[in-house]
């Protein structure tokens, strides 16, 4: 930038910053902030809207679920598998050597109450819905879930045991509002 020696402007030697450099930087920074502030609403509008967010929690009544039974509910457009596990299923999940797992995670860390397993029912490979929640569906070699798309096997804790899926079925945020009422999300 050419240094201009206008009237009343402090002139300085070559290479040092002038008043004009400062003004240009300050104006540029102010302008950049303004552009950012104007752009943000245009970007943020693509995030979930208030009504979408309001629909992002689901309460589930656990009362009618029998021991060993699994149900599927819809939460944020995705299936959530809720299992009331039997003692045998809990034992099975806890007997595994954690270090041998594809995605090592203790069963205790995946449940709030051992009886209730709540996982998002979306295969971590390519997003199919694993089978095994309904009576008569194939549950896979580890008696959890089996994904029909590419053959991933999940165990009774929803952990990946065999097949191409890289991760365990994720556990959503949830809290027990009472013994028989859970809020997911």
């Amino acid at each position: 930038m050419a240094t201009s020696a206008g009237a009343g402007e402090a002139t300085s030697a070559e290479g040092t910053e002038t008043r004009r450099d400062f003004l240009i930087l300050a104006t540029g920074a102010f302008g950049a902030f303004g552009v950012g502030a104007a752009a943000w609403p245009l970007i943020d509008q693509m995030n979930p809207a208030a009504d979408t967010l309001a629909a992002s929690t689901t309460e589930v009544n656990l009362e009618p679920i029998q021991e060993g039974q699994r149900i599927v509910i819809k939460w944020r457009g995705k299936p959530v598998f809720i299992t009331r596990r039997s003692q045998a299923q809990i034992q099975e999940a806890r007997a595994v050597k954690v270090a041998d797992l594809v995605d090592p995670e203790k069963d205790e860390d995946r449940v709030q109450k051992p009886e209730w397993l709540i996982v998002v029912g979306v295969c971590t490979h390519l997003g199919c819905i694993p089978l095994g929640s309904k009576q008569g569906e194939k549950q896979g070699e580890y008696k959890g879930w089996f994904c029909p798309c590419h053959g991933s096997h999940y165990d009774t804790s929803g952990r990946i045991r065999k097949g191409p899926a890289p991760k365990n079925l994720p556990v959503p945020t949830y809290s027990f509002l009472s013994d028989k009422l859970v809020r997911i999300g």
Partner: protein
Amino acid sequence: MSKPQITNPVMKWVDHRLPVFTFMHHELHEYPTPKNLNYFWNFGSLAGIILVTMIVTGIVLAMHYTPHINHAFDSVERIMRDVNYGWLIRYVHMNGASAFFIVVFIHIFRGLYYGSYKAPRELLWMLGVVILLLMMATAFLGYVLPWGQMSFWGATVITNLFSAIPLIGEPIVTWLWGGFSVDNATLNRFFSLHFLLPFVIVGVVVLHIVALHTHGSNNPVGIDTTGDDDQIPFHPYYTVKDLFGLGVFLVVFSLFVFYAPNYLGHPDNYVPADPLQTPPHIVPEWYFLPFYAILRSITFDIWILDAKLLGVIAMFASIGLLFLLPWLDRSPVRSARYRPIYRQFFWVLVIDCFILGIVGANAPDDPVFRNLGSFQYIHLGMISTAYYFFHFLVLLPLLSVLEKPKPLPASINEPVLGGGLGSAGAVSKPMEKA
């Protein structure tokens, strides 16, 4: 014309194959511009910025809008209440339409005052009129989309204008509607076209700018530039001036968006469309009011043409006339500064347009003055409509012949620097960067 000094090797490589940087340097940096442009020359770039703003906010709104008669109104309300910053984006889009017209109207009257439509800028002017027509179509289509009462009845009234055409009028209206009234098919196609037309406008704007840069901007003196003494490079002189003008515009625009977002709208459009009940007063958006007044001012039949058809013809002719303007005004002097009589009639035309706007906003048979019941708005509308056409069709051709213009300066430099004294020349020197 000089080539820009490009030092960045990547830019150099690109520019050698696709001279985008040379082009930008040529058109936005060194582009020689008359040095006497006043603030009325800000409104072209301002209109361009608003066009971009309208397209950006419009694309975003389309992400949340549903063009279906059962969902359109609710989806707009959802934008206002639930979508993040949806209220802001919609209010910017809504008031942006009004701002676009204010800016473009000033831009047009600037052209009228300084004779910017005269040779060699006739096509530049005519492309501008095309842009105005496209803008009006786009604005009308967009106003229908929220599917409020004004949307619905505005669409009904305007599409019914075409029924005035003899013989083929009714089939055309049915074709426009895609049914037998304004309905879902109409809303769908209006949304599609409302999305399309702004991009057509961008295309015509590009042609408008190409035509502009061919002979350069007109200027307040209205004479051609004679050399370097008359011109300054576009950057930084006019980039800075345009940015300052943008700042002032944004202050005013923000006042509307944040403090009076619905001031220019009509409350009835927050009532969902009801095909079985017409609101008591149907008023178009303010920017259509003068044209609406002209439409309603023709209440008499001429020969086999009925009043309805004549009204429609008059309304379209009021804009179509502008295409002929370069040939209606034959005066060789561009700027009204040197046309003492035209200058006065220019302001009469401005006042006439304001009066037409007021007439358009009022019911035709209401009295203009409370204590003078026989003089109604319809009469005022007839007078001002007649004057509008009189100005362009009679006054301008006559003035071209009768008016004696003031002597023009020899160059732009002369009036700017008060006679081109030696001291003034010295002052201008430091502005030229080595």
